[in-house]
């Protein structure tokens, strides 16, 4: 997509086309010849996995839309009709429903990988921001998609989430009414959610195009975080990374298939197989697992508006990250202190996910009652969420900015090839693996 091109049109047709629309050149430069650091590990295969996830969701989604009926009286039965009467409808629907979970699983690995190896740092800030935009679009798309089967959790989840917008002072209630297309979540809401759920994936695909463009200008980051210095440091994308990504995608599909075929409803909520009934509220309204950390942050804050602000802020942190991290060292391989805080951060996001699935008053240690702080027992999910939320924000607003200025990083290798060649496993027998350079 940019830089020097090694493409040489061979046949007459290729030469003819190349001066008119160099699309074969674009493909060759992007996915065949593209110089890629040779030390990318399996954490770097999740970009390819995500492209496959998006493709699967769009294809299965288009087929589902052929059979789905966006009407409050028929939506639930139409989804069941897909599962029961449409040829292989169960396959398409279960792939789509579990595909959403797989998509988020992969995107979270992809994001943590970017956090760990500093893939958001100059000159890749725009690449990172585009990724954040994709993630936000994914959240909105997944939320709207979850509403479409019009089960109990679909409906009541939609009520809870759309009501959050009503927390915005002055204009909130008007926006909510506008969004609903009425005065409650009802048929107009379902119809517009369906329309937008069909539109947004194509917007995601568009931003993915930009994301890849922004990747191909500076090129891939790599686990050392050191810039590519010479041709020695890279291999052409094809066949080296097509085969490595291909293997990772195939293994990922194995796990995906295990859910689709043998445990298709494990990641969903049983209550969503009860048709929506506005008059009966489920005992426990929870979002799907991939949004639980945000739900925990929302509930950790006692005030509704501030809860919404913190939840939005949690995503805003990701957008600000390139300018919050003050360290010039990209990879946390050479930042032992930052590495420690990073792993705590990973665990904290999982604790938030756990808290999001529990009732706020549930005890962390069963049977132990401590003292009340801010109307809740200290030994409760809500206080654990508060501590975790505090760490989440502190990681971005305090730890990363301060650490970059105060920590002493380990020496970085001169080039990508250096640690590769000096890796003990690759060194000739008996050769010293440049011990002076190792931390």
């Amino acid at each position, binding site marked *: 997509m940019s830089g020097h091109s090694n493409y040489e049109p061979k046949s007459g047709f290729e030469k003819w086309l190349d001066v008119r629309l160099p699309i074969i050149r674009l493909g060759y430069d992007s996915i065949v010849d593209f110089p890629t650091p040779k030390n990318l590990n399996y*954490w770097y295969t999740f970009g390819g996995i995500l492209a496959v996830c998006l493709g699967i969701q769009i294809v299965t989604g288009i087929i589902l839309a052929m059979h789905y009926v966006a009407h409050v009286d028929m939506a639930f039965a139409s989804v069941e009709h897909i599962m029961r009467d449409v040829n292989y409808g*169960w396959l398409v629907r279960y792939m789509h429903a579990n595909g959403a979970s797989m998509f988020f699983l992969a995107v979270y690995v992809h994001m943590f990988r970017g956090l760990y190896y500093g893939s958001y740092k100059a000159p890749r800030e725009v690449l990172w921001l585009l990724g954040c935009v994709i993630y936000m679009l994914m959240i909105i798309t997944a939320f709207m998609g979850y509403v479409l089967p019009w089960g109990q959790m679909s409906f009541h989840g939609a009520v809870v989430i759309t009501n959050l917008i009503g927390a915005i002072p002055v204009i909130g209630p008007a926006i909510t009414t506008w969004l609903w297309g009425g005065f409650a979540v009802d048929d107009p809401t379902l119809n517009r959610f369906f329309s937008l759920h069909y539109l947004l994936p194509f917007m995601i695909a568009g931003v993915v195009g930009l994301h890849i463009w922004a990747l191909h200008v500076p090129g891939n980051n790599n686990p050392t975080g050191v810039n590519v210095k010479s041709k020695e440091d890279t291999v052409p994308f094809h066949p080296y990374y097509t085969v490595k990504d291909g293997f990772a995608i195939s293994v990922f599909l194995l796990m995906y298939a295990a859910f689709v075929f043998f445990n298709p409803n494990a990641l969903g909520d049983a209550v969503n*197989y009860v048709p929506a009934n506005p008059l009966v509220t489920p005992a426990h309204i929870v979002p799907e697992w991939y949004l639980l950390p945000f739900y925990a942050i929302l509930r950790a804050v006692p005030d509704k508006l501030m809860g919404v602000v913190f939840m939005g802020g949690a995503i805003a942190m990701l957008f600000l990250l390139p300018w919050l991290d003050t360290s010039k060292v990209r990879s946390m391989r050479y930042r032992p202190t930052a590495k420690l805080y990073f792993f705590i951060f990973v665990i904290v996001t999982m*604790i938030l996910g756990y808290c999001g699935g529990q009732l706020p008053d549930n005890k962390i240690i069963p049977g132990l009652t401590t003292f009340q702080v801010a109307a809740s027992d200290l030994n409760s999910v809500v206080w654990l969420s508060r501590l975790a939320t505090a760490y989440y924000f502190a990681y971005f607003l305090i730890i990363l900015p301060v650490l970059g200025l105060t920590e002493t990083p380990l020496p970085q290798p001169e080039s990508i090839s250096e640690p590769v060649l000096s890796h003990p496993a690759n060194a000739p027998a008996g050769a010293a693996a440049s011990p002076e350079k190792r931390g």
Partner: protein
Amino acid sequence: MLRKGFAIAALGLAFIGSPTLAATTQEEPKAVHWSFEGPLGKFDQAQLQRGYKVYREVCSACHSMNLMSFRNLGQKGGPFYDPEFKNPNDNPYVKSIAKDYQIDDIDSETGDVVKRPGTSADKFPNPFPNEAAARASNGGALPPDLSDMAKAREGGPAYIYSILTGYEEAPKGMTVPSGKQYNPYMPGDMSGFWSLDPNKVPVGGFIAMPPPLAPDKVSFDDGTKSTVEQQAKDVTAFLTWASDPKTEERKSFGLAAMIYLLIFSGLLYASYRRIWANIAH
């Protein structure tokens, strides 16, 4: 990094996988062995037939199954599937079951509302004309539609079986509202109905359905002894099948897909090793 990552991911899954607790409490469902468990499990056709009989003679008096048609009974994997009749609409057994029902229709000549014998294309008829009628006949409670029951309840088949066999005398100190039964497997909050030690509130909840099964209430044509446990087990198997009638197709397709992906992954890994053999990385 990789190993640490996996450890963290496993820890995370352990967190996420832990069951979400509600304010309501209930007894853990009974552990039952099912023929359809696991990736290779299949339904026992004789059990599905017995289960359908229990549904038809007991449950269907109050519960609808709006998503089911008679033809479903004769489709592949169904209780009355017969390989001789690939099209379940032609299955004579299914046809005769359907014929026993009188279905509301409109006479195309006169426009009058008429009754006609059912066909295999008809849906299971609803026992009540509307929700109000269903509630009026059941002390205000609405018997839930059973089409999706095994998918729509936490615990699935084990939960259904436990409810059906779990009725017991309410413990002393509990006030049971009129028209309700105590069932320890039903989710509920008993604290408002408990007059003894508030720290020892029994688990479970109230259910409006009186114990539906009794010994020999349904006679099984294949000679199986008709105990409450047997009836409950059979009807649970039937409801589980009905909740996802394509289960067997899904599992056999899945087995092939897994084998294909395993071989494909192996080939890709071998190619990967070979292509990267001369690259230090």
